[in-house]
Structures are given as structure tokens and as C-alpha cells.
């Protein structure tokens, strides 16, 4: 007969009376003793996670600073090296947190309607953001930039643009920010704060204050969808269509069709 509360798992012993109690119990429901061992283990684990995530973000920040603000970041090779380094770091961290992250790789409640709806919404948002960003950059900073020009001399320039600007970030940024970072932050704070911090850091690493205006809401939405759908795949779809639409708009503006 199960006598203790609503928790089904009974797999820890009370540190005082040795009774079997629920794994989630902070206090023994028989003698009322605070389960200090449980709490100490949690604190040590949290401190470890804070350290690990700080190093993770530090590497990202360092690579982004070098590639955006120094001479080392110029050119295609530098771009592939920085993307490669960040992708390898992300894979390494994902492997380290695999036990916690593997649930996010499942897509058990896949729905084609949701897939299409998210992809369509991302494309519409990308069109609006693209025109807003171009207008702001032209009006305020008197500048115009196109991703395509970085690859225009290559044989399959359009395909490379899609792969580097849309596909690679969609997979690895989602894995890094909605996967590793948000999952780690979920352990040290509540879910809403974890969504906010991972979204804020995502926006910050794009190294453009003006783009905070659309990147922060975009990343908040991705974090929310990741929690709601319990998978990173819808986020990857949204991210891919958002960036991919921006690429197609460039091709259209540059008369490449």
C-alpha cells in the first residue's frame, strides 16, 4: 500500500529515521527532518553547472569577439573556423549533458500542421524583420550588408549561403542555447528565468545592439516553444525558415533568380 502523498517514486531513505520517502521530498513525512544530504548534493551540482555554463558562454563570447571585432575574423576561412569551433564545443557540451538533453531530441508528438504553421509564421516574421532591419541600418547607420556577398565568388554560392546562414545556425544555435544553456539554467533557476537568460545571451552574442529589438523576442519565443513542445526540433524548423527566408529575400533583392 502506497501511503505517501502524490509522489509515486519512493527511493530515498530519511537521513534521520531511515524510513523510505519520496525522492522529491525535502522533509521526511514521518519525522519531519530536513533532508540535508539531498540539499547539499543539489547545491554542489548547481555550483558545478554554473561553472560549466560560464566556460561554455565564455568560449562563445571569445570566438564572437574575435570574429566580429578583430582582423582575425575576416574572410571565409575565419568564418568556417569560428563556426567549426563553436559547433564542436556545442557537440562536446551536448555529449556531456546527453542524459538530460536526449529527451529534447525526441519528436514524439510530431504534427505536420504545427510544422507548417511554425514554418509559415517564421517566414512571415522574417520578411517583416528583414525590412525593419534594412530600414534601421540604412537610416541610422547608413549601411547595407548582404550575407550572400561573403560567398558570391564560390561555385554554389546560393547553396553555401543557405547552408552557412540558415542550416548550420538553426541546428547548432538551437542545440547550444535552447539545448545546453537552457537545460543547464533550468537546474539552477526557474523555467521562465532560464528562458530569459538563454534568450538574452543568444541576442547578445549576435554582437549588434540594434538587433536586440527582434532577436530577444525571437529567442524568447524559441525558448517558450522548446518548453511547451518538449523538443528542440520545432525550434530548429522555425530558426531555419527564419534565416532561410532572409537568404531568399537577399537573392530576390540582388536579382539572383
Amino acid at each position, binding site marked *: 500500500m502506497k501511503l505517501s502523498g*502524490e509522489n509515486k517514486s519512493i527511493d530515498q531513505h530519511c537521513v534521520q529515521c531511515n524510513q523510505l520517502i519520496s525522492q522529491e521530498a525535502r522533509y521526511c513525512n514521518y519525522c519531519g527532518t530536513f533532508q540535508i544530504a539531498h540539499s547539499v548534493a543539489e547545491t554542489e551540482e548547481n555550483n558545478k553547472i554554473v561553472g560549466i555554463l560560464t566556460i561554455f558562454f565564455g568560449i562563445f563570447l571569445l570566438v564572437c569577439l574575435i570574429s566580429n571585432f578583430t582582423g582575425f575574423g575576416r574572410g571565409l576561412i575565419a568564418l568556417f573556423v569560428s563556426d567549426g569551433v563553436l559547433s564542436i564545443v556545442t557537440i562536446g557540451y551536448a555529449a556531456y549533458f546527453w542524459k538530460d538533453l536526449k529527451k529534447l531530441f525526441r519528436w514524439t508528438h510530431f504534427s505536420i500542421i504545427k510544422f507548417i504553421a511554425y514554418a509559415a509564421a517564421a517566414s512571415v516574421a522574417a520578411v517583416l524583420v528583414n525590412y525593419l532591419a534594412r530600414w534601421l541600418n540604412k537610416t541610422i547607420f547608413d549601411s547595407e550588408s548582404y550575407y550572400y556577398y561573403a560567398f558570391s565568388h564560390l561555385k554554389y554560392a546560393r547553396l553555401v549561403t543557405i547552408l552557412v546562414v540558415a542550416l548550420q545556425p538553426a541546428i547548432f544555435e538551437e542545440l547550444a542555447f535552447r539545448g545546453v544553456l537552457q537545460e543547464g539554467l533550468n537546474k539552477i533557476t526557474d523555467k521562465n528565468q532560464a528562458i530569459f537568460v538563454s534568450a538574452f545571451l543568444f541576442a547578445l552574442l549576435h554582437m549588434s545592439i540594434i538587433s536586440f529589438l527582434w532577436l530577444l523576442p525571437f529567442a524568447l519565443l524559441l525558448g517558450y516553444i522548446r518548453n511547451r513542445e518538449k523538443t528542440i526540433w520545432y525550434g530548429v524548423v522555425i530558426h531555419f525558415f527564419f534565416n532561410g527566408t532572409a537568404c531568399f529575400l537577399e537573392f530576390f533583392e540582388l536579382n539572383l533568380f
Partner: protein
Amino acid sequence: MSDLDLSSVPGTAEECKCCFEKTNLVDQFCQKCGFPLKGTNAEQQIFMYRRSFKKLELNGYDKKIKSAGTTLYVLAGIFMLYGLVYFFADSKSNTASAMLITYGLVAIIFLLLGAWSGKKPVASIISGMVLYISLQLISAVSDPTSLFKGIILKIIIISYLVKGLLSGLEAEKIKKQHNIE
């Protein structure tokens, strides 16, 4: 009958009077806050008194969190001032209005984080601190000596933010430990 879960049987579950978590009729203590469900009135009152003391302890952390929030407001002011000085000192330059808007946006972000620090201290202070450190590093990339300019003020700002962050984490831990909202 060995797998019968009494919490699913109507009338067997009750609510903790202290933290309002669901408990079972056979529980002597609440699993979430430790309230003596079957204790005497005196025992329950002593428990509530100790819990009030914990809430007072949280006030100590609140002071450091408020200081961190004030630091975020100060940063908002500093960046707005930078933007205005840059704009009025060089208003004919093409970049003057761009710099004013950039600094203004940074100031607004710090302002919003400061306003939010009372409700969600961990998220707002981490974000503010990372933004501040990143801006210092960006400036240091083009001019490494800039790291040492106003170094004392920078150390004071970071120490206030770190203290606020640690207090926020500790306060969250106590709230979780005692199931305090």
C-alpha cells in the same frame, strides 16, 4: 491492494495549512515545507514562528538584490550620459546620432533589467552583468588600455552585481527549501 495510492482516493488527500501543497492523511509532516501536520497547536505555532524568521532572513538578501538593481539603473544613467556627451560633442559627425541611439538602447536595456530585478533577480542580474562585461571586452578589443580606465568604478559595479546575484541564488534556494512563494 499493494499498489493502492491513497492520494487518488477522494477524501484522503489534504492541503498543508502552511504552504498549501497537497499532502496525504497519513503524513505526519509536509514533505515540501516540513509543517507538523499532526502536531499540537504549540508545535505548529513554533514552526510558523521559525518560518517567519526565515522570511526575515530573506529581507537581508533583498537588500543586496536591491543594490544590484540600483547598480543596473546607474549603468543605464552612465550609458545614456555617454550617448548624450558623444552626440553633443560631435553633433555634426555622421556617426553622432547612430552612437546616441546605440548608447540609448543599451541604457534602455539596463533600465528594464533594473526594473525587473525585484521580481526576477537571478535572470536580470546575470543578463545585466554579462552585458556590462561584454561591452567592456568589446571596447578592450579595439583599445586594450580602456580596460583600466575607471577600473575602481568597474570593480565596484561588478562587485555589487556579483553580490546581488549570489543573494538572488541564495534567496531562491531558501524559498525552494521552505516552499515560500
